[in-house]
């Protein structure tokens, strides 16, 4: 008899309580923790094109160039460094996505499951840029950073994989899960002036 793996605990379960917080606003920022499977893909020496082809064939996803993110119907990839990407997708059982990618890439890539290693947060709203400016040194002005752009940078002194995924603007941030509570504290503190809503983890 197979027994299912329990739902993993969130590193934010003590602090991320759904509700409205901060200043009153008709259009509060929206903060949400995402439950995604995360898999880091790193090509082995000289195998870049094999990995690109395998991911395209297996998941219909074209791995993005430097400082970009790419999305297919079910999966997103963020460029991290030459030959390295972070892939994310919803709806996979524990370990299943990493296994599927390993099966597809074989010995062409080193695959590491990071589902528990990173906490994924999204920040969305007209004032999202102002919030990000309080911890992120990058120029996120629409002329410089737009949907589909990504960066590996520090936000609030914490290493962060960042991508913009729409023009509202909305940002997705992957931070080490041991830092997630600290990061969340900075994020909500910085958003309080504009008012924010925490949505249930999904």
């Amino acid at each position: 008899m197979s027994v299912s793996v329990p739902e993993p605990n969130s590193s934010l379960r003590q602090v991320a309580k759904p509700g409205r917080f901060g200043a009153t606003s008709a259009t509060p920022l929206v903060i949400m923790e995402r439950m995604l499977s995360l898999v880091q893909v790193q090509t082995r020496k000289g195998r870049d094109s094999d990995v690109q082809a395998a991911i395209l064939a297996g998941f219909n996803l074209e791995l993005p160039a430097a400082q970009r993110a790419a999305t297919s119907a079910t999966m997103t990839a963020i460029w991290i460094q030459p030959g390295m990407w972070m892939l994310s997708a919803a709806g996979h059982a524990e370990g299943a996505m990493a296994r599927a990618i390993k099966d597809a890439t074989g010995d062409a890539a080193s695959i590491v499951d990071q589902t528990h290693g990173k906490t994924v947060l999204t920040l969305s709203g007209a004032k999202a840029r102002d919030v990000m400016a309080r911890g992120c040194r990058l120029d996120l002005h629409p002329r410089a950073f737009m949907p589909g752009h990504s960066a590996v940078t520090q936000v609030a002194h914490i290493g962060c994989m960042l991508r913009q995924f729409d023009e509202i603007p909305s940002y997705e941030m992957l931070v080490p899960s041991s830092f997630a509570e600290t990061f969340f504290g900075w994020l909500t503190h910085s958003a309080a002036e504009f008012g924010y809503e925490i949505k249930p983890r999904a």
Partner: protein
Amino acid sequence: MSHRLASGGRIDRAKRLQFQFDGRSFTGHAGDTLASALIANGVRLVGRSFKYHRPRGILTAGAEEPNALVGLRDGARREANMPMPAIELFDGLTAQSQNRWPSLDFDVLSINAKLARFMPAGFYYKTFMWPASFWEKFYEPMIRRAAGLGEASRDPDPDHYDAVHAHCDVLVVGSGAAGLSAARAAGEAGARVILCEQDFELGGGLLLDPRHEAWRADMIAALGAMPEVTIMPRSTVFGYYDHNVLGVIERVADHLPTPPQHVARQRYWTIRAREVVLATGAYERLIAFPENDTPGVMLAGAALSYVRRFAAAPGRRAVLFTNNDEAYDTAFAFLESGIDVAAIVDVRPVSARAETARLRGLNVLSGSVVAGVSGGKSVERVSVTKRNGSAPDIFSVDLLCMSGGHNPAIHLASQSQAKMEWSDAIASFVPGASKQRENSAGAARGSFGIPIAAREGAATGAAAATAAGFGAAVGFTLPDAETSPRTPIEAFWEVKAEGKSFIDFQNDVTGDDIRLAHREGYSHIEHAKRYTTHTMATDQGKSGGLVGAALLAEARGETIPAVGVPTYRPFVTPITYGAIVGHAVGADFNPIRRTALHDWHLRNGATMMEAGLWMRPAFYAQAHEKGDIWAPILREAKAVRQAVGICDVSTLGKIDVQGRDAAMFLDRLYTNTFSTLAVGKARYGLMLREDGIVFDDGTTSRIADDRFFMTTTTGNAARVLEHMEFYAQTIWPELDVQFCTISDQWAGMSIAGPQSRKTIEKIVQGLDLGNEAVPFMGVADATVANCPVRVFRISFSGELAYEIATPAGYAEPVWEAVLAAGKEFGITPYGLEALGLLRIEKGHVAGPELGGHTTARDLGLERMIKKRGDYIGRVLAERPGLADPDRPRLVGLRPVDSSKPARAGGHLIETPGSSQSLGWVTSSNQSVELGGWIALAMLSRAEHWMGKRLYAAFPLRKEMVEVEVTHPHHVDHENVRVRT
């Protein structure tokens, strides 16, 4: 009697604001500053000077104010040394004068002024030198009590501050005619523009000239309509750094009694600009003459500001003392406002403006100077003589306005490394060639007057936009050029007359002090600055700095450009510490790392402690153990030795190493061999730095032929990964190896003690835990409570032990399952303190022994060094000094009287009183196995001393403990238990 003019000004007369100064209540208006409101209430005396406690009044109308510094607000929000002219009035404001006791009007230490002749520059150095022993106990405390302006609150700051990053194509500093034009020109070109203005109103000098109000309003409206132009009022650009990075403080809520909820009091902006336009205007210079610091002596431009902008009369009857045409505007404004002008004293023999003034009925005394002022706490009489000397004319007035010319505000340009150049035309320095991507415009580069400033601003703004990649053309109207003739300024610094002529009001420096410095050999401008404290105050000599340089030049018989002025440094204007610190206070000082079991620890009575950025349980005290810190530590350690304990070891660094050459890479990284390790086995590894010193250790397991699960110490996790990346990328790029940190992906828990196998056997599914199936250093995957786990049979405590790693999201259910299974054996959670105790008992090295000064042999780990094959650190580890057999080696210590600790840090000596150290104590703790205290130490000629006695001396605490030298393994020397 009110000094508020009946009409005019930019104040909102309908909006009255109550405020208090030194406990007295006053009324002002919205749009006032504290300075203008006090002037409108007829208040003259606002402070006492720093050294001589001389009475002082308001000198300027800006943040450069050297005299009128107050303590602002009460309680936790009290701030010292706030310049009154930069304090925007709000309802309920309270301020206190400084540097006076018992009151501003009667101040005991003003006796210093009488003693002034005995307190010249360098007084403290000369007087308080002997006897030397008096310095620390007597002189310094005495001077410190007398010195210092104001007193800061000692309570925690109740406000919060934000740090914000911004980027733009063109940053414009200053919003006068030049700044507004520059911003609009750049904005119309399509550039992203930020316009910073330190005042709460935009306009700079435009605010003093009603004729230009329509143009000002039009410019602001136009800028406001441009989506890519950001206007930041109340924002001081305080520093110009490399790569066009500028620092800005935005005073978001200082004009309110308290910041609104959720809003920062101030924001610290770091602005990265492609191009910078410095339209920072100019500061007016004072003139040195006897008693020029008497309340009622004011800079002419400041008086103009109080009359025109704030409708506040700084006096009823005035003398104006000038060497330039610009200052005449003040006299004309006085005429319009009904303030008597007794005389205009112009050092120049002729001037075009003097003729204009005479035509308007004003009494102009050309070729004359102010020879002195009398009145003490307020100007009463001004004496005026011809420059070549004559019987003085005495004028009974209550206001003396002075203008020695204007210094372009070149501080930011200077910080950007642009050299200063002397301009005879304005008798001041102007910015020279740019070093960074910046240009000055308007008064900031010595072009005085609104029309020319507007033209320069427009051209500079357009050029900046072009340089940033935008096509620029100025499509807006500019104020008409001036046509009235002007006579140039005559450089004039000091009236040569007997008396105290101040050149630095904030630090009480006189012209004579500069000459004294020169006579005593401190003739370099930087030496004279430090000897006299001239320009060392927070105003950095904005009003009198150049005057001091001119007097030094005169004393040296050289030109002013040959002498120069001291280096300008950030901060151009003082800023609040809280804003620099920003969010990083208290618990937010550093990011905090929490393990997946953090909440469990808190719920279960853990006392947490910091380990780097991590928070870890130190111990879990039970209710009856309150007050006895050792009780929980010994109880937890005993449980491990006698039954079973469980410890959160998630903080250990974990690195996933993969690739065809992963094993070969590890062979080179570690001093021992990993390519021979079988899949499903772990091995203890030791790595050295390049210099042969031990770097880190940990167990690394082979998961597959091409994949290892590596662990590092908690503290070195990031450093080890960097070290590996460095070698993989630069030294051995041919190796196929990839790394990924998995420290946060995997939670880890150590289950240690004789009952550990019996405990986890009950819950580990899909794995036989028998000694043959999973021997010591065996590794296998399984499940616990349906969660995936990886079981490692490794031990830090020296007991039979397992580590269970699980993806972090399952840490709590797995931990709880182990606890439930171990309940019948008395399983006990243990913290970092017990962990430390256990490893010291076992003689395992950790941070105190791996401190960057020990070799493998020093630590008794020579068996970890492979005989063949290269590895990082091999060559330099063979240096004679590191290979010396007499180097201190790891030993154990047992105090002869085991109730006495051999404190860590103590030195090992042969006999009491010996000053020859044979080694030192690294780690000390109580032993649950042996009872009493034990320790680890590094000891020279360790084998010679084995079994003998030494003394562990800790002179700082006057401790001397006799110890016996033993093997470091206080427990289970044969290492049987881990294999059972």
